């Protein structure tokens, strides 16, 4: 039997990990849903967010300012990449975007090594206080991360359901050609979506930075988890990504409590089961080939 204290902190750990997974992959999922691209470069913005957080927090000693700056830099980088690169390859086959974006990820990691060096960099935790939950001390910073994921989820929901641009994006996820046929410039929607995606990926990196060592490979380290989260949730579904991020987070966290090697293996087992039962993922719909 697992110790109760261990279980509480394990659940909190899993929730915070799931929150990071969600922020990191929601862009990937949105970009696939609307533009039918596999944007592995999201993981580059994730790393970039963490590194900018490191640099700014060391220069100013304000970690939050670093996180904010990281998100802005991530959004700007995404804007540039969308303009210079994706705009030229939207028409191509989906595998083309996957290879291109993986190339970008590798090249970006090279650039990060060039700028920040190979040594892992620490970022201090902005909130060191702990709170007592059911007799277990839990770091408040982890609760803040969980709160951030819920706020972002609610924000995306409001954006997609309450604004015209958001509604156009939802319509485009179903059928982008019909949106264009109404007279809406879909390339503008693509740009907006990609910038949101890059900003959130960078936010994930920035928020996670104080809990890990920031190193050049951090994007590649989470690549498999990012893939699993979007596939289990169903590509293109925000709700699916949200649910599956927390599922994978808990599986990693509680799995490692039960038996350490499970942390790496259990998510794959879950993915296998989900895909056997529902090949489109938990909330995915059969996708049209474009």
């Amino acid at each position: 039997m697992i110790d109760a204290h261990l279980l509480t902190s394990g659940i909190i750990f899993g929730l915070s990990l799931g929150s990071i997974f969600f922020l990191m992959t929601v862009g990937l999922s949105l970009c696939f849903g609307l533009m039918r691209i596999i944007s592995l470069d999201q993981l580059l913005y994730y790393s970039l967010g963490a590194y900018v957080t490191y640099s700014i927090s060391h220069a100013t000693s304000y970690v939050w300012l670093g996180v904010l700056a990281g998100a802005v830099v991530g959004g700007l980088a995404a804007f540039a990449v969308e303009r210079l690169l994706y705009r030229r390859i939207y028409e191509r086959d989906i595998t083309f975007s996957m290879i291109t974006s993986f190339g970008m990820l590798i090249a970006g990691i090279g650039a990060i090594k060039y700028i920040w060096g190979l040594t892992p960099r620490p970022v201090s935790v902005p909130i060191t206080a702990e709170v007592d939950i059911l007799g277990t001390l839990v770091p408040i910073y982890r609760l803040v991360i969980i709160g951030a994921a819920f706020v972002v989820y609610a924000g995306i929901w409001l954006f997609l359901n309450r604004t015209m641009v958001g509604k156009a994006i939802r319509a485009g996820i179903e059928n982008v050609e019909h949106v264009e046929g109404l007279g809406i410039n879909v390339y503008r929607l693509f740009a907006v979506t990609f910038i949101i995606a890059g900003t959130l990926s960078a936010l994930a990196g920035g928020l996670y930075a104080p809990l890990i060592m920031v190193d050049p490979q951090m994007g590649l380290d989470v690549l498999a988890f990012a893939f699993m989260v979007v596939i289990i949730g169903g590509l293109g579904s925000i709700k699916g990504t949200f649910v599956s991020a927390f599922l994978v987070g808990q599986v990693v966290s509680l799995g490692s409590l039960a038996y350490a090697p499970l942390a790496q293996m259990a998510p794959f087992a879950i993915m296998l089961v989900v895909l056997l039962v529902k090949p489109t993922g938990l909330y995915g719909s059969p996708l049209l080939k474009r």
Partner: protein
Amino acid sequence: MSEAGGDALSVIGLNVWYDEAKALFDVSLRATSGQVVACVGRNGAGKTTLLRTVAGFLKPRSGSIASAGVDLVGLPSYGVAQLGIKYVPQDKMVFSDLTVRENLELSSYATGDYDWEPVTTYFPKLKALMDHKAGHLSGGERQMLMIGRAILGRPGLLLVDEPTEGLAPGIVMHLKHVFRDLSKRATLVIVEQNLPMVCAIADTLYAMSDGRIVAEFAGRGSVRPEVCERYL
């Protein structure tokens, strides 16, 4: 749309390819302002390809497409739509996750036309369905929504692809009246397999076969189901 500067639609010598397969061969077609032009032919004759090329979804290898003197070749499809040229696809795929209201809102957002009266006048049934998810609509209701979406912004040219396919006779009759009324303020190019319906409203009829225009009938008197039948 202004009447000056040429026909509502003028297609000359259009050649369209899907990669290595040629789909349209030297297609020429003309619709003067306010006309109803029908295009008939078997499946695979190139009717949909023709409409999709005019709407900007496909790029022709050669040939010209103009509307009211404006060259359409090379415009993105949203640009064509912004000129008041709306394509109503045959797939009847409304945005099923959005409500009927949201479907119409998107069209208003695109065109800046928030006057839904024409839509609800033609299709009063949509009024009661405003807050329903469009995915729950019947085939006929979906077609009403597709046409309703297209006529917001008061387009000058409507390209309608097989509007009655798979619909109940009552709705086909209803649509016939709607098209006839719409033709008072817009030019219509309709692709159809339903000859009685299309012959009742068309001023000019083109028959297509294997990517070519094979016959043209101009004038109400000559557009009759008997003469057109052999092209289906």
